[in-house]
């Protein structure tokens, strides 16, 4: 398998604060990768660096072998990297259906520029309806996004990113703000919808049960660094990860009750 996304020595500093330090990793095509870490570990910063919202202080990002470091988000999107957001970024005055049509319309206006989309010649309107169906959003089709419940906005946000059929999808905490008993059904729905298109997924998450269940591989971040990278079971049992990320005492020192 060849890496679809690759970062080398990616570093970002804000004044005295280093939000990402020397992050080197690669994501293989057609995999589901989880990215875990505590608050301020640099997870969202990493997504922002990859998608061009932030310019790295040092290091490079390559996508399908091509250097995309420092490109604007819209150019990176057109190459086939789409993302969702921790706080849903939807168009409040547009209906759910119109929200989906924004991205689809952009693709259909410029298929040549939008090289990263696998939409083919599908009609945007048909794809929008199909996405609503796939994400179980049909009943909200003609409701303005501003009145939708937060969980639905979250789904819509992800559906918008997936609708244009990118090569890789980056999800920023898809289950944050969703109640504990809804998390698994939400993730079943989301990953089912995404994997139907065989899109590569990298998702940021702080819920260990979620990453354990849905990923083949986990990257653990701490203080802007990658502290563990490997298959899910190995990373989750890594003592450093357990201590710094999961927030449990590592097994060998775990005798002391807390």
């Amino acid at each position, binding site marked *: 398998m060849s890496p679809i996304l690759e970062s080398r020595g990616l570093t970002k500093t804000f004044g005295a604060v280093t939000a990402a330090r020397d992050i080197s990793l690669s994501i293989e095509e057609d995999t589901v990768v989880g990215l875990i870490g505590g608050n301020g570990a640099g997870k969202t910063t990493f997504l*922002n660096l990859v998608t061009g919202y932030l310019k790295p202080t040092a290091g490079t990002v390559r996508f399908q072998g091509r250097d995309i470091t420092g490109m604007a988000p819209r150019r990176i999107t057109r190459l086939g990297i789409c993302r969702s957001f921790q706080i849903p*970024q939807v168009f409040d005055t547009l209906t759910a259906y119109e929200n989906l049509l924004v991205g689809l319309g952009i693709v259909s206006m410029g298929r040549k520029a939008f090289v990263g989309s696998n939409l083919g010649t599908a009609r945007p309107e048909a794809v929008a309806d199909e996405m609503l169906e796939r994400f179980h959003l049909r009943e909200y089709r003609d409701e303005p996004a501003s009145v939708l419940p937060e969980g639905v906005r979250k789904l819509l946000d992800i559906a918008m990113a997936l609708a244009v059929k990118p090569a890789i999808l980056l999800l920023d905490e898809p289950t944050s703000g969703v109640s504990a008993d809804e998390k698994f059904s939400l993730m079943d729905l989301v990953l089912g919808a995404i994997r139907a298109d065989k899109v590569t997924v990298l998702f940021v998450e702080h819920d260990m049960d979620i990453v354990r269940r849905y990923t083949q591989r986990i990257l653990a971040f701490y203080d802007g660094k990658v502290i563990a990278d490997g298959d899910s079971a190995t990373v989750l049992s890594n003592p450093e990860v357990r201590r710094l990320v999961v927030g449990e005492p590592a097994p060998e020192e775990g005798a002391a009750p807390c």
Partner: protein
Amino acid sequence: MSTILAVLVDGVIYASWLFVIATGLTLVYGVMRILNMAHGSLYALGAYAAASLAGAWLRAGWAPMGSYAMLVLAALLVGLVVGPLIERGLLRFCYGRDEVVLVLVTYALFLILEDVIKLVWGVESYFIYEPYGLLGNVEMGALSYPVYSAVLVGAAVLVGVLLRIGIYGTRYGKLLTAVIHDREVSAAMGINVNRVYLVTFTLGTMLAAIGGALTAPTVSVVPGMGVETIVLAFAVVVIGGLGSMQGAALGALIVGLVRSGAVHFFPQVELFSIYLVMALVLAVRPRGLFVAAEARKI
């Protein structure tokens, strides 16, 4: 040499006048996030009130020196009456709306005030030149300036100093700074934000009115005098950075000097030189000289 001196002196006098007006505009924006398009009309109200009061005083034959007190009194009156009236009667219903909507609200207010002034004072001009000449002239080299201009400069410095002390040196000023920084948190911490707004808008109105009252003796007070003033004040605060007091001071100086320079050297460009400077500053510093652009967190 004397031309350069004249440019500097004229520029500083003009800047003083602009500063007093612009500082009220920037204060209201800084605290309330309202870019008040009616600020020029409040300035005009101050000028009309001053012309009426000082005129009545002088016609009554009382000590001419007292007319200065009348100018100040007029400004205070306008501030204390009109400020709360507008804030309580209109603006408080609009808090929390988009900044652009608030601009439109104050634009509507501007239209209304322009006609209210005409209805109260009629369309003829008012002149009260006495306070302007009363203090005599002062010689600066080959140039002669009325002492009243020095009063204007002094008034601007006084306003600047008082505001600085008021904001950084008093308890109330600290509340104000807190509200500027974060309205919601301030309210949650128990600051009476509504009262802060009321006081701020009254103060802003008063500053506009002081600008108008002090100008009244130097010009003819006519309908529409606020129309040009407001766009000049905009230029000042936009150059300096909306909401910044230091910005208003620097912006006023820049605009004052640019204009007096243009008047002396390139009279053709006088009118638009100011806006040109504003456009240039914005091209380089999108939020003005004293305010940094902020990044959005996602």
